[in-house]
């Protein structure tokens, strides 16, 4: 795992934010993993970014708490976060990986509407994080593969962001580009 200290801090602070029900802090913590995730493309960093972002959305939805299976799901997640923190501190990387996987698989233990809702939250979290990694300069296809989503999902989401407004994105002039195309169509 890359930048272990950072991931440890993210999970420790996330644990507190969950107790406080503070979604915006969780989102900010998730964003803080994006630089490392983009640069190293380390699966554990990417998983951390997705999980923490998904948690920010989940804890903000009070209506989920009335759904059947919520109590169990919430307690299991908290338990897995604590286990992850402990495993990082004890430098047991294989356990960190196992716990991160288990957090995502918690969805499989759900049923009915909650399973559908939480599954969708995780999917959207993956697309959101993919869009951030793409914005950092990693290609669409590469990013989609890293996050396990399709280019279609990423492109649909990224189009609504400011990615194309970055000044570096301007490479040649529109006039030059159109000239090349017109010459080709002659």
């Amino acid at each position, binding site marked *: 795992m890359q930048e272990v200290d950072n991931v440890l801090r993210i999970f420790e602070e996330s644990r507190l934010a969950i107790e406080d029900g503070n979604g915006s802090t969780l989102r900010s913590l998730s964003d803080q993993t994006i*630089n490392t995730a*983009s*640069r*190293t*493309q380390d699966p554990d960093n990417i998983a951390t970014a997705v999980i923490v972002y998904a948690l920010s959305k989940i804890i903000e939805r009070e209506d989920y708490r009335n759904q059947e299976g919520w109590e169990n799901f919430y307690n299991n997640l908290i338990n897995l976060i604590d286990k992850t923190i402990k495993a990082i501190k004890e430098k047991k990387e294989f356990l960190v990986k196992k716990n991160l996987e288990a957090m995502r698989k918690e969805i499989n233990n759900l049923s009915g509407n909650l399973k559908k809702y939480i599954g969708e939250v995780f999917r959207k979290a993956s697309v959101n994080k993919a869009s951030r990694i*793409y*914005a*950092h*300069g*990693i*290609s*669409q*296809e*590469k990013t989609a*593969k890293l996050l396990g989503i*399709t*280019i*279609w*999902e*990423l*492109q*649909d989401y*990224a*189009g*609504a962001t400011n*990615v*194309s*407004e*970055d000044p*570096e*994105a*301007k*490479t*040649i*002039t*529109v*006039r030059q*580009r*159109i000239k*090349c*195309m*017109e010459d*080709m*169509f002659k």
Partner: protein
Amino acid sequence: MKAIIFDASTLISFAMNGLLDELRGLKDLFDGKFIITKEVKKEAIDRPITIKRFELQAMQLKTLFTEKVLELPKSLDVDDKLITEDAKDLVNSANKIFYGKNRKIEIIHLGEAECVALSKILTERKIPNLLAIDERTMRMLCEKPGNLRNLLERKLHTKITVKKNPEKIIGNCVVIRSAELVYMAYKKGLIKLKGNMVLDALLYAMKYKGCSISEKEIQEIKSMDRKKQFIK
């Protein structure tokens, strides 16, 4: 013979905007081939056709493929194996261009690399070609890799070192986007909608479905169009 090589991103922009008939119209006007590689076909058609959310658009793209509006490189006598081999080399090299904190930054994947590999093969065979790419990274790598280095450095807040010459790896590829293609469709009268805001609507539709074009560039295209109409 000449060719336009489509990346998945450009096909997705056309498909998501319901403008595949216009793409077909452009092909009819083009004295050459619209080519997609094996990997691009997978990303644009074969995979999304199995996902309910994108099934319809992927089916529509598949129809273009069946009708030979979009064709595989073998229609130009280029072997898939050759493209895959070249693309793998290209991915391998391109992903070792930029380094941050002494670690390579992997920036592209196989489908994107296949388009560039095919473009290089066609250029070697003296077949004029253009790449149609809507996504930003590959386009920047082809046209101005220095800008990509600057972007990575700014976004990652890390000093980026260039360890390989991007121009040597990529060659001289020329890139167009769905925005330019839809402008061509508009100019050639392939757009059924009428009115003075149609071009604006088309360009913004492409932008919001993922074509990497800035507001300023859209204004430039519109201004070019106004000047051409004035001259007429």
